[in-house]
């Protein structure tokens, strides 16, 4: 994409791979990931920070890629849905989403997976109210959330059991 105007060189890691590029300074991280890197699993539902479909993990914290500029990712470690499965092995959350039928259209799935991955990484418990609170920044219009909450609770529960 040949956007004129200011460009800046950035270097960061995405799903463990180092990327170095010139990026337009006004380009969002989401557009950069999707259009320049072709990693389209990061979805765009609102582009103003409400739906959570674009959630990615930047330096260990979940972030809305539509609200962050690509240049701000300079030096950061970014993780997207494409980086969840290791060597063809689905992450426990990905597996649970399938087993619990936690998606209909699937458009919100990436965002929920990343929010939940962040939640699991921070050792959250499987209390339903807490899960619902943690997920309240992600919108799903298809499911009514029941199976999403179930899937995530199941993984967190298993994780907690392992810790003990």
């Amino acid at each position, binding site marked *: 994409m040949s956007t004129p105007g200011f460009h800046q060189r950035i270097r960061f890691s995405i799903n463990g791979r180092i990327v170095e590029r010139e990026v337009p300074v006004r380009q969002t991280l989401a*557009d950069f990931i999707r259009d320049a890197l072709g990693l389209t*699993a990061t*979805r765009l539902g609102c582009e*103003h920070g409400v739906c959570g479909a674009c959630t990615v993990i930047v330096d260990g914290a979940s972030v809305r890629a539509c609200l962050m500029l690509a240049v701000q990712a300079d030096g950061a470690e970014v993780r997207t*849905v494409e980086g969840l499965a290791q060597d063809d092995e689905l992450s426990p959350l990905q597996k649970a989403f399938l087993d619990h039928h936690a998606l209909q*259209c699937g458009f919100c799935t990436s965002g929920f997976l990343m929010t939940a991955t962040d939640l699991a990484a921070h050792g959250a418990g499987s209390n339903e109210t807490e899960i*619902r609170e943690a997920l*309240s920044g992600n919108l799903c219009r*298809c499911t*009514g959330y029941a199976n999403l909450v179930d899937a995530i609770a199941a993984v967190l529960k298993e994780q907690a059991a392992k810790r003990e």
Partner: protein
Amino acid sequence: MEATTSNGKFKVIGTRPIRHDGIDKVIGRAKYGADYAFPGMLFGKVLRSPHAHARIKSIKTDKALKLPGVKAVVTAADLPEAANRLEQAGEMAINPHYLSMNILARDKVLYDGHAIAAVAATSPHIAEEALKLIEVDYEVLEPAMTVDAAMKPGAPILLPDLRNREEGDKQTNVAQHYQFKRGDVEAGFRAADYVVEREFNTAMVHQGYIEPHNAVGIYNADGQATIYCSTQGAFDVRSLSAQVLGVPVGKIKVVPAEIGGGFGGKTTIYLEPLSVLLSKKTGHPVKLVMTRSEVLRASGPTSGSKIKVKMGATRDGKIVAAQVWMAYEAGAFPGSPVGAGAMTILAPYTIENLQIDAYDVVVNRPKTAAYRAPGASNAAMASETVIDELAEKCGIDPLDLRIQNGVKEGSPQVVGPPFRRIGFIETCEAIKNSDHYKSPLSGPYRGRGVASGFWFNAGMQSSATVNIHTDGTASVVTGSPDIGGSRASMAMITAEVLGLPVTDVRPLVADTDSIGHTDVTGGSRVTFATGMAVYEAAQDAARQLRERAAKVWEVKPEDVELHDGVLSLKEKAEGKAPMTIKEMATKLARTGGPIIGRASVNARGVGPAFATTCVDVEVDPDTGKVQILRCTIAQDVGKAIHPSYVEGQMQGGTAQGIGWGLNEEYFYDQKGILRNTGLLDYRMPTCLDLPLIETILVEVPNPGHPLGVRGVGEVSIVPPPAALANAIYRAVGVRMTETPMSPPRLLKAILKKRAAEETQSAAAD
């Protein structure tokens, strides 16, 4: 989750396998429309009207065209004049003239956000900058924003050529008046002991799919165009785009991408013809994706409405008369779902005397599109709260009143033949017997409400092929975009018929060149009608497999049977051991070539759907905020193919109905400008706003379908607004007649009631 699913004779149907497309969605490989990219692709943006109603005096595009990176600009001048007449397009009747005017405004803009021009440039940023350089000279006109404003004498006229039968040659905003009558309404009301009469106003709401509209158009020098887009109906995109572009249908191929929700809103076109036009002008593929604000301002929400309902019952609870007046906002062009609203509003009840008058009214808002059981939820908000009031007056439990008056097999419909086997009363009884309804609700400001809903469901045309592969697995190909897990159901039906494991059947959704015509994914028709085509196509493949086995064994095809994936002779014979489909598949080349089972249907025998919903709420009397404590829906689902996805439809529709009832609304200012164009202000339910929605699957098989299937996708959205209103009444004693029942509206009603009570007690003192 409660499920009364009986699996009967089925092996696969009624089970809950992991969906085939799930893996691509959890690893992120699934391709939605906006994910497509092609070498040399340009990016398009659309210039939209800042006015609700204005005449376009001139459009100047030369400055925009001079901006480096801009490759083309199109306006309505680039579109041919389309025919000004009604044409059937799938479920809807379409007037190509108006459709074209909605794609690009001709001499007037009719709503805030109405498309005026489109630009293609080398980046979305440049395209956006170019929009600012397009000069449009407007003569601003007074808008008509509500049905009241549009119907009153001397109202501003939106479409100078619009006429209706009753008003002769007079210019009007009323596109259509439908009337349905039965019996003698006056006499009916005279026989009533109680009469309830109320007026309702419901706000325009949006489907709220998370994925914005998108399209990539590629025009080839030979005149062939390909469109990639997220749509509920690739064939509709093709025929509608062909109408607007003035080319034969065969010149366009539509490739349906994965679709991020539609709920009816992705059954028409917006960006698709623009992508082709821009591609034709530039010689490059062109991608357009709407922003959220464009989705809200300029795609097709569903109608706000004004509805008056008068209903009478005798002391013992028999509803004896009903009269309804309803007017729906069509948006800028005719075609609100008021006809459907009229035919659903009283549908669950046998009422001997009724009259329904329904008006389709154009207003300066975006042209409405279908939204899950279009027109039925706002209608039920009116009728189902009046029913609740009647039950209260009669001193009868609201479920019992519904059971007493409810339709069953043989009852008349508002139009058409009497109902065949239906499960309305069963849904009322399921709620009555549910743990939810039996558990007492106590505490201040708490209340429980019930309401029911009806939806016709649709049949229409579908095609399917089932291919037997050389390794004995199969693929099932349809033309129905999958919005809620229907691919899994298609694979399950195929697996059931052939006796294969469901993992050995691969379901696909094909483009418009690769499968026979298939109508839109809508009207809850996919599992019903496309499922019927798949069932027949699988039967066809099974028949051919039996024929081939007969050839191998040198017997008559009638002597061969196929059970659980094994072909065998009905009567055992020496040297003719049973063969699995796998074994038979290796012999196809030698016995006549590949096997393709195929079928197409124009499905009859549609089974209508009913649902009854029970909801418990707690109202904060100081803020008017409603918290939902518990919610259960019982729905007649005919036969659940994949119960998890049936439950998913029931929960999803209920969630949308709750949003509709409590929070969602289009908010226009005095000038007709939409003020809530983002998801922060157009507030849809999050998982904190909703309880776990409990589901009860009632299975009353549809006699019109070989597997008993009836559509399950829509009716769940119908009862919630009314059920909430009824629950709110029991919690705080106010009858709400407006949606959304948002905190400010509810608080106002509570304060009004309190003031009235204070004046009353002051007067008594």
